[in-house]
């Protein structure tokens, strides 16, 4: 009987140890960021190479591609981390970017294209085959068209320059992107830009120097605010701009009819060579040292 009791105690003790260990593990897994640090929840701050975390929601502005202007009405977030700035070479002054831990470095938000499908594939001026097909979409009022900005290359291809951001001169953010045009008629693979031929944005908060017909435009670094006793800074109301970029012709639009549809969209967009396009991104830029984020996380198990 005594033996049974002893064995029972041992089993209980073992169960308790396992339970405590499980709680401990759960505790460390649930370590969480607090206050404004929560913005950096997907920053890869545990990576030794990551020096700073960034969270930048774009809530306004526009992208003008040739003759088409798409206002940014839905929030697009750029988040992740970046390392030390290169001191020499062609990338001097720029830091390598590290992707967000949830894989969403640049969030996808489908923006409405004014004029919809009719504005980009007009029924009247389309070839008979396209006209016959598109008629179905117009009759069924499936005419909405959206444009989604996506990264054209891995996040590691993004570059950040803190100095240029702080001093409002030169390129602050280099980002290879592509534009995904979406409508049932266009299919799922209608893009302007690709991983092999991306749209290379060289965004500045200073003044651009585009080729004609575009004129120089000025961005702004916004107003600096500090949070968490100076561990986090926010550039409120920043505007990153670039109007010197070029875009390749659209591709993959219209499924099997892409050989017919691509040229129609291309002609509707007009010239998309450098000097004909503009990106204006109105955003807030939140930054913090990766170490500060890491410590905040560790302090709140």
């Amino acid at each position: 009987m005594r033996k049974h009791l002893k064995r029972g105690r041992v089993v209980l003790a073992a169960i308790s140890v396992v339970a405590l260990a499980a709680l401990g593990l759960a505790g460390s897994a649930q370590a969480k960021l607090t206050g404004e640090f929560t913005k950096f929840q997907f920053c890869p701050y545990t990576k030794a190479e990551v020096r700073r975390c960034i969270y930048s929601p774009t809530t306004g502005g526009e992208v003008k591609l040739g003759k088409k202007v798409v206002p940014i009405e839905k929030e697009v977030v750029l988040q992740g981390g970046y390392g030390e700035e290169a001191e020499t070479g062609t990338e001097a002054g720029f830091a390598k970017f590290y992707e967000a831990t949830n894989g969403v470095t640049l969030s996808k938000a489908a923006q409405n294209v004014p004029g919809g499908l009719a504005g980009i594939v007009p029924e009247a001026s389309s070839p008979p085959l396209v006209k016959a097909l598109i008629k179905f979409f117009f009759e069924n009022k499936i005419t909405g068209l959206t444009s989604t900005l996506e990264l054209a290359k891995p996040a590691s291809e993004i570059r950040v320059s803190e100095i240029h951001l702080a001093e409002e001169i030169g390129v602050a953010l280099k980002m290879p992107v592509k534009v995904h045009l979406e409508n049932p008629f266009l299919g799922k693979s209608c893009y302007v830009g690709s991983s092999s031929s991306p749209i290379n944005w060289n965004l500045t908060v200073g003044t651009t120097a585009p080729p004609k017909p575009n004129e120089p435009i000025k961005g702004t670094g916004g107003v600096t605010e500090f949070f968490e006793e100076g561990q986090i800074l926010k550039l409120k109301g920043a505007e990153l701009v670039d109007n010197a970029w070029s875009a390749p012709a659209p591709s993959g639009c219209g499924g099997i009819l892409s050989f017919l549809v691509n040229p129609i969209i291309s002609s509707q967009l007009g010239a998309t060579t450098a000097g004909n396009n503009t990106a204006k991104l109105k955003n807030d830029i939140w930054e913090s040292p990766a170490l500060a984020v890491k410590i905040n996380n560790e302090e709140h198990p």
Partner: protein
Amino acid sequence: MNRKVRTLVRGVFLALALSAVFSASASAAPSWNFAGKALEGKETIMGGAFESGLTLPGLTTKCENFLYKLTIENSGGTGKGSLTEMPLYNCTTSSKFCTVKTIGAEALPYASHLSTVSASNYIVIEGVKVAILYAGELCSLGGTTARVTGSAGGLLDNVAETATFNAASFSATKTELKALGGKAEWTGVFPTEAFEWHREQALTVS
């Protein structure tokens, strides 16, 4: 007769109004004076701020020692100056995570001039450029050089012999300092004391 009187009265009022305008514009260009006499030639005034702070929204940087050296003269009836030195020492921030590694004025000298706004005299310093390198591995500005640029207007007090820089003096003189893309606020009270030919003489501006 009545019409003549009215015309005369109007004429007198017009003359008075014009003289008021001229005296106003004359007082808009004040000059440096020592012991009640307009400064002739050049003089050097220098000193250290009684207190001074620079605020980016949410982060104040204070320097225990904020010195300046200003060469002044009257040119064309207007007080002018050239700020040739502005050393800053022992600077700290309001954040326990951020320190000031280096701070210094760049692109000296800074031109300055006197101005009168609403019967008050101001000194306006132009082309200010101060570089502040912050440090601290947990500081969001760690390793970043913030450059404070722009112009600064300070209220001159003939009685206290000081120049006071604050939001009101910046607003009155329509001057502004910027840093990190935003507006920077600078507050400071500086004594105005001659250190060459007019040592220990009262410096006034009028």
